[in-house]
């Protein structure tokens, strides 16, 4: 029995347990009028809608006659709908009988079909008789037309909400690679995904979460590449969420992650479209929420937090080296201060004699023990970081200069802290900045405080105890059943090609095994053979004028994971 199935069983058991009546998050409208339906009586409808929305300043209702014969009313929120569109595509054809309909007499029962089929020049129009749907359409910026005697209302999607331009994500900048990032509008984000994945396998399942915000959530995956069980589990976990509002995708993250108390993020988020697509291709699921420019990627393993998208664009030797540097930075940000405290206060015999004596001299006038010094500096560093984070960039720069240079220098010359401590804290801080994933860096930033305290109690022994506890925690973490440290533990040679070192793309033939992808071929089987052939040095000066050898176009078979048009699922 796999872990996943087991957890499913477990959750199933929980569901069967007698449930206590939960106080539902309130939404008055659906409670009171959940299944109220429209009647043919126009005045009654107007009265009802007015009672519900009429006291809003931006609510607009306009009476008119359809084709000059049927009294009707149009509702919309003026600021959310596109007025020009409403005028030309809705009101004009409705009020002015179109040429092809002149002289024909309709019954009021036929009117709905005539309007939808023959009159409106708008792609997204539908009809419904439930007030719940009508009101929701209105609230999302739609335009609703009710005609006297017609027992259904016509809803036209005329939403026009301002959106910002697609630009480079601030949090994940790259030197090489695409520059576009997600924005707040879900529709745009989905279009960005579709633009990169023109395949029938890209499935986007949507649901609405949040009783008040009714945020649209899109679960995206590549059918045939992702494990079906994973998609099912993601949907299961999402569907049980019951909250008043989902303002950011981070809200969802906290509901679907495996361990809420862990400092480590078990769900990755990204603003980058290419990163989301790359993860889809590896067999992960991407979750988007309307109103949030971040996408969630599940399942996540620890490795992903020190990898960036440009790692796959640059040459693999350099990337492996850079990743090593990042890992070093990660280690720095976690253990430098505690190692410093342990060595200075417990085991000075570990450092070279000259240095030990020098350090001892540097610390001679310091009134505090090293642990207090380090904790103080760390705390002020955190404050400084938090302060510069929220300030406008111009002031932020100035503040960081004041904070780091002036205060640091002054603190040293005032005999408040020792110069070595400043170096150590600087190393730590820089280390934590070098981690690509902000949330992972945050976890390590937090964890180094207990480590420092352990170091102050037990020296190196304490540091080691702390590290073991952290490592054990990491080893016991799972993200949707995937062990957090895979593919290192449990080891998988093929997937380990993309951990600290990144193997060349052509050698990573399989998708990560930990994701249990039904289709795990990433690179075509014959790539290596073709690459190994002697190069055609076409422009070699010796060969100029020679006949160009026949070359195949493209290096891999065209269906790496894409079943193409034949969507057999």
């Amino acid at each position, binding site marked *: 029995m796999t872990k996943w199935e087991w957890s499913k069983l477990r959750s199933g058991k929980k569901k069967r347990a007698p449930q206590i009546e939960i106080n539902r998050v309130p939404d008055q409208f659906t409670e009171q009028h959940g299944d109220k339906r429209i009647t043919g009586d126009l005045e009654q409808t107007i009265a009802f809608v007015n009672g519900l929305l009429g006291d809003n300043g931006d609510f607009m209702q306009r009476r008119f006659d359809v084709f000059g014969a049927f009294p009707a009313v149009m509702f919309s929120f003026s600021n959310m709908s596109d007025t020009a569109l409403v005028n030309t595509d809705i009101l004009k054809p409705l009020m002015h009988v179109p040429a092809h309909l002149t002289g024909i007499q309709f019954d009021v029962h036929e009117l709905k079909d005539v309007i939808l089929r023959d009159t409106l020049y708008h792609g997204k129009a539908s009809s419904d008789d439930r007030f719940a749907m009508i009101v929701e359409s209105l609230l999302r910026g739609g335009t609703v037309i009710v005609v006297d005697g017609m027992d259904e209302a016509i809803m036209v999607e005329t939403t026009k909400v301002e959106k910002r331009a697609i630009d480079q994500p601030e949090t994940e900048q790259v030197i090489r690679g695409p520059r576009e990032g997600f924005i707040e509008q879900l529709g745009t984000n989905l279009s960005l995904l579709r633009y990169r994945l023109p395949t029938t396998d890209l499935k986007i399942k949507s649901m609405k979460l949040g009783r008040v915000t009714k945020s649209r959530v899109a679960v995206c995956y590549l059918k045939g590449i992702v494990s079906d069980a994973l998609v099912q589990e993601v949907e299961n976990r999402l569907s049980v969420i019951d909250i008043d509002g989902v303002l950011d995708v981070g809200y969802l993250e906290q509901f679907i992650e495996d361990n809420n108390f862990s400092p480590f993020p078990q769900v990755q988020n990204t603003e980058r479209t290419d990163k989301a697509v790359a993860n889809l291709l590896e067999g992960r699921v991407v979750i988007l929420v309307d109103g949030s420019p971040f996408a969630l990627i599940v399942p996540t393993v620890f490795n992903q937090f020190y990898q960036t998208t440009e790692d796959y664009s640059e040459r693999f030797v350099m990337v492996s080296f850079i990743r090593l540097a990042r890992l070093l930075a990660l280690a720095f940000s976690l253990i430098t201060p505690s190692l410093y405290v342990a060595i200075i206060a417990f085991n000075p015999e570990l450092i070279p004699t000259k240095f030990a004596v020098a350090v001892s001299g540097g610390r001679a006038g*310091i009134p505090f023990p090293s642990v207090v010094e380090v904790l103080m500096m760390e705390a002020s560093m955190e404050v400084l970081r938090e302060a510069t984070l929220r300030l406008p960039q111009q002031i932020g720069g100035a503040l960081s200069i004041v904070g780091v240079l002036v205060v640091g220098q002054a603190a040293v010359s005032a005999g408040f802290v020792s110069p070595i401590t400043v170096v150590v804290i600087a190393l730590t801080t820089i280390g934590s900045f070098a981690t690509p994933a902000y949330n992972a860096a945050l976890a390590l930033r937090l964890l180094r405080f207990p480590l420092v305290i352990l170091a102050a109690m037990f020296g190196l022994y304490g540091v080691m105890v702390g590290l073991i506890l952290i490592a054990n925690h990491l080893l016991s973490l799972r993200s949707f059943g995937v062990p957090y440290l895979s593919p290192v533990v449990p080891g998988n040679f093929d997937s380990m090609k993309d951990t600290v070192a990144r193997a060349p793309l052509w050698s990573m033939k399989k998708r990560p095994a930990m994701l249990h992808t039904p289709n795990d071929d990433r690179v075509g089987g014959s790539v290596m053979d073709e690459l190994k052939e002697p190069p055609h040095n076409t422009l070699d000066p010796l060969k100029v004028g020679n006949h160009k050898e026949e070359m195949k176009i493209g290096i891999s078979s065209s269906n790496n994971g894409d079943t193409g048009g034949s969507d057999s699922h």
Partner: protein
Amino acid sequence: MERTRRTQARLLLVFVLAVPLLSGCWDRQEIEQRAVVLGVGIDVASEQTVNKNEGEVSHLRGSFPEPETGNIRVTMQIAVPGRIPLGPGVSGSGGGGGGAGGQNTVWVVDGFGQTINDALNNMQQSVALPLFYGHLRVIVISEAVAKKGIQNLNDFLRRNPEIRRMTWMVVSRGKAAEVMRLRRSSSVCRRFT
């Protein structure tokens, strides 16, 4: 109800377990609060000098007969923090003439006693900070002491976990104390490092 009680029990457990940890820091001794011993010299001492110089630290004066291996005088080089500059800036200001009040990078301190432990305890009386042998580099034994056998000394030094096994143990032809007092103008604390 059940849940709160469990939470309370857990919290209680955490607090109980935290108590022994909170009283921690038994071994914390900052580097600047340690007297870093760089070298130790061991000489024989006459009973008179010992009696004159020995504080009544480990035993009352004259209450113990002189041991077979004779009395001991220990001379120690202790690094003076702050005299060795951080970085290459002001180098070699120490050493020099080496006279009184000069910028000595090391203190040389004497201690007398019937055994080495005795002598070290006595020496601790004249040094404010606890002696720290982690950086001890050389142990100089005068010929006179060596002739009497160094088994005792060796055993004592080996049992101290601070002293590394890589420490040199050398025998000097003259007095070990003189070796400890040797100075060279270019040395900072590098004499034995």
